[in-house]
C-alpha cells in the first residue's frame, strides 16, 4: 500500500482518500476539458488498481511478456532508429508504424502541462530532444492519454505496466489500422477495454462516441465495435508482445499471430 516512500522517479504517494478524490476530479475534468490529457492519464492510474495486477500477471505467464517485464523496454521516439524503420519493406510493422506517425502528426505543439522536473518524462522532454524533420508534435493527435510517466501507481512494476500500455497505444493504432480521429480512437479504446480491462479504457469506450455524428455512430455500432470486441477477445495479450524485436515482421502476419481479425473495409 502506498507508504511514504517514493517508489520510482515521479511517484507521488497518495492515501486512499486522495486516490478517490483524484479519480473523481480527473474524470470530471477530463470530460469538461478534453484537452487535459494528463487527467485521462491520472484517471487511468487511480482506477487501475484491479486491472493492472491482472495485466501484469497475464504478462508474467507469457514467455515474451515475462521478458518484457524483466528487460523493461521503452518505446520512446528518441530511442527509435527512424531512418532504419523508414527503410523497412512496405507492410512491415516498423514501416507502417512510421507511416502512422507521419500521417497523424502535424506541426503545432499543443501545450500539455507536464511536470517539468521529472527526468523520465516520456513525452515533451524526450520529443524535444529529437533530431528528426518534424521537431514538434501535436500530442493531441498522436495519443489521447500521451506517454506521461505514471505518478499515482503505488507499485513500481505496475507503474511500468501502465507506462508500457501507454507507449504501445500507437502500435495498437497501427495493428488495428485505425487513424487517430475520434472514431479511430474510440475503436482502439474498445479493443483495449476488452484486452486490458482498465476502467479508463472502458470509460473512454463508453463516453467517446458521445461526440460522434450519427453516420459515424452507425458505422461504429454495426461494424467497428463488434469487430474490435471480437478481436479483443480472440487476441492474446497485446502487451506481451516485444514490438521492438518485431519491426521487420509484416503487420498482417503479426495480426494473424496475435489473433486480431482483419479490419472491416470501412472508411474511418
Amino acid at each position, binding site marked *: 500500500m502506498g507508504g511514504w516512500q517514493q517508489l520510482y522517479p515521479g511517484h*507521488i504517494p497518495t492515501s486512499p482518500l486522495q486516490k478517490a*478524490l483524484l479519480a473523481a476530479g480527473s474524470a470530471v475534468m477530463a470530460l469538461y476539458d478534453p484537452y487535459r490529457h*494528463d487527467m485521462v492519464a491520472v484517471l487511468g492510474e487511480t482506477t487501475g488498481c484491479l486491472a493492472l495486477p491482472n495485466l501484469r500477471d497475464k504478462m508474467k505467464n507469457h514467455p515474451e511478456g515475462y521478458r518484457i517485464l524483466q528487460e523493461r523496454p521503452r518505446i520512446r521516439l528518441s530511442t527509435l532508429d527512424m531512418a532504419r524503420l523508414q527503410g523497412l519493406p512496405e507492410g512491415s510493422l516498423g514501416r507502417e508504424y512510421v507511416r502512422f506517425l507521419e500521417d497523424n502528426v502535424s506541426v503545432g505543439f499543443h501545450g500539455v*502541462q507536464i*511536470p517539468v522536473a521529472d527526468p523520465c518524462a516520456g513525452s515533451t522532454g524526450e520529443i524535444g530532444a529529437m533530431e528528426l524533420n518534424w521537431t514538434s508534435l501535436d500530442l493531441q493527435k498522436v495519443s489521447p492519454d500521451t506517454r506521461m510517466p505514471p505518478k499515482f501507481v503505488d507499485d513500481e512494476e505496475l507503474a511500468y505496466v501502465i507506462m508500457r500500455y501507454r507507449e504501445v497505444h500507437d502500435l495498437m493504432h497501427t495493428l488495428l489500422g485505425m487513424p487517430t480521429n475520434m472514431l479511430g480512437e474510440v475503436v482502439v479504446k474498445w479493443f483495449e477495454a476488452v484486452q486490458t480491462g482498465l476502467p479508463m479504457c472502458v470509460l473512454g469506450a463508453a463516453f467517446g462516441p458521445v461526440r460522434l455524428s450519427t453516420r459515424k455512430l452507425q458505422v461504429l455500432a454495426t461494424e467497428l465495435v463488434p469487430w474490435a470486441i471480437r478481436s479483443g477477445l480472440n487476441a492474446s495479450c497485446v502487451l506481451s508482445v516485444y514490438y521492438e524485436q518485431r519491426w521487420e515482421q509484416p503487420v498482417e502476419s503479426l495480426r494473424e499471430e496475435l489473433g486480431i481479425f482483419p479490419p472491416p473495409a470501412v472508411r474511418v
Partner: protein
Amino acid sequence: MAAALWRCRRRCRALLSRAAGALRARRGLAAGPEMHFGFQTVTEEERREKIYQVFENVATKYDVMNDSMTLGIHRVWKDILLHKMNPCPGTLLLDVAGGTGDIAFRFINYVRSARQRQLQRKLKHHQNLSWQEIFESYQKDKFNSLGDSQVVVCDINREMLKVGKQKAQHLGYSEGLSWVLGNAEELPFDDDKFDVYTIAFGIRNVTRIDLALEEAYRVLKPGGRFLCLEFSHVSNPLLSRLYDLYSFQVIPVLGEVIAGDWKSYQYLVESIRQFPPQEELKAMIEDAGFFKVDYENLNFGIVAIHSGFKL
C-alpha cells in the same frame, strides 16, 4: 484506518523535521545552510530557487486555485485587510509579493470610492458658490479620481507580475499603479518612502523573514503601517484536525486536477505548517522595530492579519 496511519506518519515526520530545523529555521535565520522547503530540508539558495519555480509554474492558475482552495473566502480575507488598512486618498502603498495584484486593485477601488465621498462632501459645502466655480472645482478634481494615491506592486517573480499586469489591463486599472520586480529581503526603494506596506500570503515564501521585516521598517515613513496577511495556526484542536485533513488530502488533489501541479500545492500546505505561529511572528515584527504590534485571527486562525507601526 490506513488513512489515519498515513496521517500519523506525516505528523511524526513533520514534528521531527520541525524539531530538527526549529532553532535554525524558525526565526528565519539560516544558521548553517539548512532551511525548510515544506517538509524537506534544503539550503537557502535551493529554497529560493524552488520557490521561484513553484510560483513560475502556478502563476497562470494562481487565481483559479485560490478560489477553489478557499472556496472564494480569500476574497473576504483580502477585503478585511483593506478595511483594516482604511486608506484615505493620498496614501502611498507598497504591496510586496503582490504578484497578481489582488491587494493593489482592492486598494485602488477603496481609495477611489473614498475619494468620491470626499468630493461629494466638498460639493455639499460649496452650496453658495456660483455654478462656474463649482464647475471649475469639479473639473480640477475629476482628473484626480484617486486623490494622488498610488500603489507599487513589488514581486520577485516575473511570471506573477506578468499575470498581474495582464489582469490590470483586462480589468481597466492603470492610474496610480506601478509594477516593480524586486526581492522583499532587499527592496529597491529608498528609506522612508511609503505610508503603508502590505504583504499578503507572501511572507511565508520569503527565505529570510527577518530581513524582509527590516526592509519593511526601512522603506516605511515614520508613522507608517506594516500589515501582513498570512496563513497561521489554528489552536482549536477539532478544527485543526479538520483543517489538516482538508489541507493535506484535498488541496494537492485540487492542484493536480485544476492546475496539473500536485507538487506546488503540496509545498503550499507544508509551508503553512512550517510558518511561525501568531505570537512568534508578532515577536519577530517587534524585533524589527515596529511598535503597537498586534494580530487579528480570521476564521479561527486559519489566517491572521498582523499589524505594526513605525513610530
